[in-house]
């Protein structure tokens, strides 16, 4: 199969054809609605770049567009999906129900089966389910990519049961296809076959297993791509693009993240903390000067014949805030608390001291659990099981938690302390205990409240953020990493 984005006869004149411009413009619009910012100049650059690459070469076109329009690594995956959908294989031979009768494919089939079973010209269509499974086994064993791609196509045609116009999402078809292929059993079979050959050692076994897993993963992606292609053929690129649209990692909402999105979030947080730490350190160093460094000034003046033209100053002593984080870790906001704690802790060197408390309706200090824990997940698990955060029934009670905090630790809040409260302020109609915040605000340097709920939900139902807000120096909506990042930066 040749991957042509544009019809092959369309060569590009110096002025660029109108058709190409319109196609690129549509693609740019799609990228923008997926959240990737593409400026006008970048759009022009892309058109300019396309004049230099062969339009028949799908990969070349893709990389040319990516290089000119996608300027962040985190956007690459979204770009790739949009590209696959928008420039899905078009043309008569890719219509639904009209399977490509590929000579090459037929040859592959007859070659692999050894004996040409009937007429090999029928390609994959003519195979029985057992034969297809056998071929899949061999393809995985040998790591034959071309064959895997062919099998993915055949499997989708056979098992997905796609019908034109049926309003079902791609995941449904994916599930149906993969269930029939039974990849788990295949993996087991592959490993069994390998078991006899290997000269022992857990390491070898692990490596072999991982190799097969990666091949199976490749197959899964092929199947996914094939399903997407067929969906596009059925419904048109624009409609499919809307359904496969996924938020960028920095826009994922903490409170509604799926498991897959959680993984993406977790992966995004490490580079984010690195970036933030550098920025905070820089911010602290810049703009302010320490006292005059006499020795260095004299040394510097020697190059100007003893005239101190440029005074040298000592670097300033950094004043680092002390942070106290008080986090609601009840079910609804647990994910948000987790990411905020992780972010604040990995920035530990930027603050003179970080202490943390967790509460549901009871409250407990959790600083020690988090200290020195490389794996924040394990630390959170320990907090949930060991810390004394439940008082009566395990439903959020901000009033009681805040009062307990004031009684036991209130006196340790002092002028250099910044208090961070994390939670949605959904208090299950208990007393608010807002007076504690008023007291805290008087003692501490700053009191901030971070709420993971959209601003429009505040003070609806049992949310009583309005009771607390007057006592805080700021109440911030923190629904995603982008907002969290913005807040932490101004904290330093």
């Amino acid at each position, binding site marked *: 199969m040749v991957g042509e984005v544009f019809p092959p006869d369309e060569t590009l004149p110096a002025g660029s054809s109108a058709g190409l411009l319109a196609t690129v413009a549509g693609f740019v619009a799609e990228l923008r609605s997926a959240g990737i910012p593409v400026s006008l100049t970048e759009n022009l650059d892309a058109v300019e770049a396309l004049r*230099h690459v062969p339009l028949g070469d799908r990969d070349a076109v893709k990389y040319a567009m990516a290089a000119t329009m996608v*300027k962040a690594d985190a956007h690459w995956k979204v770009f790739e999906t949009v590209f696959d959908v928008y420039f899905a294989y078009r043309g008569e031979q890719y219509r639904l129900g009209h399977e490509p009768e590929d000579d090459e494919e037929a040859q592959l089939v007859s070659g692999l089966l050894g004996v040409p079973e009937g007429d090999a010209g029928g390609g994959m269509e003519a195979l029985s389910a057992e034969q297809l499974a056998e071929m899949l086994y061999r393809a995985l064993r040998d790591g034959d990519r071309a064959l895997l791609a062919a099998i993915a196509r055949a499997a989708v045609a056979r098992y997905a049961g796609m019908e034109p116009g049926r309003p079902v999402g791609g995941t449904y078809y994916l599930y149906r296809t993969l269930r029939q292929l039974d990849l788990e059993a295949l993996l087991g079979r592959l490993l069994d076959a390998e078991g006899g050959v290997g000269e022992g050692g857990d390491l070898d076994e692990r490596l072999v297993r991982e190799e097969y897993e990666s091949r199976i993963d490749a197959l899964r992606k092929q199947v996914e791509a094939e399903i997407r292609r067929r969906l596009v053929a059925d419904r048109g690129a624009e409609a499919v693009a809307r359904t496969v649209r996924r938020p960028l990692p920095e826009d994922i909402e903490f409170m509604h993240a799926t498991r897959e999105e959680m993984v993406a979030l977790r992966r995004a947080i490490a580079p984010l903390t690195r970036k933030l730490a550098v920025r905070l350190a820089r911010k602290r160093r810049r703009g302010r000067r320490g006292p005059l460094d006499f020795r260095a000034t004299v040394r510097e003046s020697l190059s100007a014949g003893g005239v101190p033209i440029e005074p040298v100053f000592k670097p300033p002593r950094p004043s680092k805030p002390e942070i106290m984080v008080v986090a609601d870790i009840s079910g609804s906001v647990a994910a948000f608390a987790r990411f905020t704690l992780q972010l604040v802790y990995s920035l530990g060197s930027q603050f003179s001291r970080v202490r943390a408390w967790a509460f549901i309706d009871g409250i407990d200090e959790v600083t020690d659990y988090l200290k020195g824990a490389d794996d924040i997940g394990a630390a959170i698990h320990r907090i949930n099981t060991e810390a004394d955060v439940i008082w009566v029934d395990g439903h959020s009670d901000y009033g009681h938690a805040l009062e307990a905090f004031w009684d036991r630790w209130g006196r340790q809040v002092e002028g250099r302390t910044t208090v961070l409260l994390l939670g949605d302020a959904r208090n299950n109609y208990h007393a608010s205990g807002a007076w504690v915040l008023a007291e805290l605000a008087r003692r501490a340097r700053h009191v901030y409240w971070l709420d993971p709920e959209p601003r429009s939900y505040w003070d609806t139902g049992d949310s009583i953020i309005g009771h607390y807000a007057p006592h805080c120096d700021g109440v911030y909506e923190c629904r995603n990493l982008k907002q969290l990042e913005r807040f932490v930066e101004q904290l330093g």
Partner: protein
Amino acid sequence: MTDPAPRFASPAEVRRALREVDYLADDGIAGVVFLAERLGKPVLVEGPAGTGKTQLAKSVAEMTGARLIRLQCYEGLDESKALYEWNYKKQLLRIQAQRVAEDGGAGGWGDVEEDIFSEPFLLTRPLLEAIRAEDPVVLLVDEVDRVEVETEALLLEVLSDYQVSIPELGTVAARQVPLVFLTSNNTRELSEALKRRCLFLHIDYPELEREREIVSVRVPGIAEDLAEQVVRIVRSIRALDLKKAPSVSETLDWARTLLLLGIRHVDTETATGTLHVLLKYQSDIDRAAKELAAPAAR
């Protein structure tokens, strides 16, 4: 500014040429280098440390037979280190010489001024040098994310118009468009203006096959089997949740180590014994050792 005939007909050709200088590019890398040459645009290369960002610029220079001019960025880098500086010591000497001559009674201040702000008194720094070069050059601006946002603006004029304005001399325009590579470790977000002017290239850890090729090309004498095993183990380690995943250069170091130790086949013991070549944090080493020693089932 002259526009020489394009050096490469297609991305595939770039890829072949890079291969000849022992740099194994994938389609993305070759495509971007090809476009950079055609469009005359700088390339912003981003990615984890040790994946060959700087090496790409070096290899492209070698491939095209150009001179590599390198500007290493750091915090506090300013105009006088990046663009140009007046050689004030020489200027002082010139003024003093003038004074001596004046005792004889000749010339005025105007002559001196015109004289001391002329090219002989100019110290060119990497950016200006790249622009004034007569011979083909590749300019490498390394770790551009380390400079402040204000200094970044300094780069903009150079990168978009290939010219430098010197108040006393006027504008110096490039005699030819140099290939420019900027690398970034992504410790901060670069400004939109800079990104917009560049082609963007993200270099990630390579695919298994490519990494194996890199190992066999860069570590001469390594057996096919061992190379395969090395890259598989590295992939396995990269999948773990580590502070710092092993980079390509560390993979190469490890392969060389194994070769020197005369190891033909890596078993659990050799792997855990030499992990410190691959990983640089003790907690990472412990973790990987534990994982590799554990039975395969996950």
